């Protein structure tokens, strides 16, 4: 059979170093890529269904359980949506500042995990961080210590690192004392030094020369880098309030995935997450983070998904530096929560989870009972863009052996830090070329 008509299948059934279960399937007819599927087969857990009939006060605790890696993102988007429904938005002041500080903890923990434990092994040629540690123990140890600083923030403010207990609709149950937060300054200062060193180190890794052009979508916060609130904006003119999400973005159900696929009604696929945030909000970075990015040669926008590891490191500088500033200025919110009285309404909440924008929408009745719930996680929004990214990577790499091509594809997926537990409400990797 001639090369031109040969069909190849490349597949990975259980993709490693991602959160949750998924795989990949790619089929090539000759040199043409005929099919690309990111297969998310994590069993569905039906959160939107069992939220019906629950109380509006229960959403931070319940939706946190969608994801053990980014529970704070779920708590923040759900609380904001309920506060929006009840007409008490918390857009500024000490409660908002404390929320942002807690959220910095989650970004530090999640990004340290991804950069050092999940992503770096791809560049260093190891199957995982434990194997990296056998030859370069100090690299993995510094990553773990930075992660620990993030988790310490989560523990002091939230009560524990996974599924924090201190977040409620309206604010917090008990604010931390200044003394409790001051104990975090030293580990966070060390984490900031590690973050700066991480930007420098990751910028020296070997990146394939790739430039992809999906529409970038992120929140825009007039007060700083987008984390906890903002309008939804893109680099192609989208600029809407979270309440207009449905008018502009639709979710579709495809057969090969238990995660719904989101797309912009007018333009199709889009990308949310570190690359989009960095490229849209470069000017909003703290000077230390922007300077670190500039010294690493990153430029004001980044369109190479393989370089997302450098962008995450820049965001680690951003969040460690911001956390220190927030602690320095901290005054305990008094009272720790504002009163939120239910009313019959629809509320929307959008925040930036470490891996991208997370949108919640709830309809509640007059006594606060949830009538309808909708949760759109970042990985659902990114699925199409990741598949398009995979297709582009395979098209450029058809001369690689099956083994190398499989590895390259897996890496292309891990570039986006997909969270499958979140999105199914994700990965099996197969490259088909028989």
């Amino acid at each position: 059979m001639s090369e031109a008509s040969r069909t190849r299948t490349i597949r990975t059934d259980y993709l490693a170093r991602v959160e949750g279960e998924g795989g990949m399937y790619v089929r090539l007819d000759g040199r043409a890529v005929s099919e690309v599927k990111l297969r998310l087969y994590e069993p569905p857990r039906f959160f939107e269904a069992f939220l019906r009939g629950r109380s509006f006060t229960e959403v931070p605790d319940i939706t946190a359980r969608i994801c053990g890696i980014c529970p704070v993102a779920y708590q923040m988007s759900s609380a904001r949506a309920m506060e929006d429904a009840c007409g008490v938005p918390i857009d500024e002041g000490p409660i908002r500042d404390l929320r942002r500080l807690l959220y910095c903890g989650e970004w530090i923990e999640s990004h340290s995990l991804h950069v050092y434990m999940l992503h770096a092994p791809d560049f260093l040629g190891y199957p995982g961080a434990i194997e990296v540690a056998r030859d370069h123990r100090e690299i993995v140890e510094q990553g773990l210590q930075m992660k620990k600083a993030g988790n310490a923030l989560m523990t002091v403010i939230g009560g524990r690192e996974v599924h924090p207990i201190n977040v409620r609709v309206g604010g917090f149950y008990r604010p931390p004392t200044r003394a409790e937060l001051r104990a975090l300054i030293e580990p966070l200062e060390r984490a900031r030094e590690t973050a700066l060193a991480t930007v420098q180190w990751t910028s020296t890794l070997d990146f394939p020369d790739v430039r992809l052009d999906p529409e970038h979508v992120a929140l825009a916060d007039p007060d700083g880098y987008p984390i906890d609130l903002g309008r939804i904006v893109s680099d192609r003119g989208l600029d809407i309030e979270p309440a207009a999400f449905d008018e502009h973005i639709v979710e579709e159900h495809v057969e090969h995935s238990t995660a719904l696929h989101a797309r912009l009604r007018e333009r199709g696929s889009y990308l949310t997450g570190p690359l989009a945030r960095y490229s849209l909000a470069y000017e909003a970075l703290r000077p230390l983070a922007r300077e670190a990015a500039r010294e690493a040669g990153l430029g004001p926008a980044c369109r190479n998904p393989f370089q997302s590891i450098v962008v995450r490191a820049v965001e680690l500088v951003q969040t460690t530096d911001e956390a220190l500033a927030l602690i320095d200025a901290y005054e305990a919110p008094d009272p720790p929560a504002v009163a939120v009285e239910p009313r019959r309404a629809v509320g929307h909440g959008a925040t930036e989870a470490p891996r991208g924008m997370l949108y919640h929408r709830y309809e509640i009745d007059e006594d606060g009972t949830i009538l309808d719930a909708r949760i759109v996680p970042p990985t659902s929004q990114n699925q199409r863009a990741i598949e398009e990214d995979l297709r582009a990577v395979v098209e450029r790499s058809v001369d690689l052996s099956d083994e190398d091509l499989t590895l390259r594809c897996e890496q292309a997926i891990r570039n986006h830090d997909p969270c499958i537990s979140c999105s199914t409400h994700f990965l099996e990797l197969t490259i088909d070329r028989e």
Partner: protein
Amino acid sequence: MNGPRKQTLAVWKFASCDGCQLSVLDLEDELLSLADNLEIAYFIEATSATVEGPYDVSLVEGSITTLHDAERIRAVRANSGVLITIGACATAGGIQALRNFADVEEFARIVYASPDYISTLATSTPISAHVNVDFELNGCPINKQQLLEVISAYLNRRRPRVRAHSVCVECKRRGTVCVMVAHGTACLGPVTHAGCGAICPAYNRGCYGCYGPKETPNTASLDAWSGLGEHDLVRVYRTFNAGAGPFRQASEAHERS
């Protein structure tokens, strides 16, 4: 010099949020020495390198919600010396066991436009409903120090020091003033399994039962003290351990009355 063969550890995932297996990676100070002392033979979230079983110790996260997973857990059991479930999903069915009280086809229609693409069981069940389990570690999420204790105990062939008394005992040891007695805040602490360290009352809120039922819980007595109505009592028992025997029975009793 060849020492004795390192014991092997495998980590398995079923329907879950990944938070409990993340607790292994959250052992920032102990992870690398753990990896020095045993062989992490299968842990797909951490490494693509896998070693063929059988495994000395398997940690299982998540509940059984599909026919495929019901088959898979039998294969895991057959390939494991010791099988330890970690967290509320694996031990009680998790929050997704709320489907056990509802119509799962209706659930699929609410979430998915094409429910025909979804294959799922009508129930979410704990691992022990399918295979023999050697030890169950409670919590949503588990306490990572308790996890370390359990792994260490099994590697050294001793019983884990994990107590089954109530959260109340942990509050007393921590010196937290009782939120129910002092502030009238409804609290599941008296019927909830210890292990978290009694975090919620230390943050001025009542325990919400994420570690599941303690040994011999008296839910009827607590409920009479709680000041909550029947509808709210159904809700407080129907969260992350809704499928655990005593919590399920309590919620069903309040639903009937």
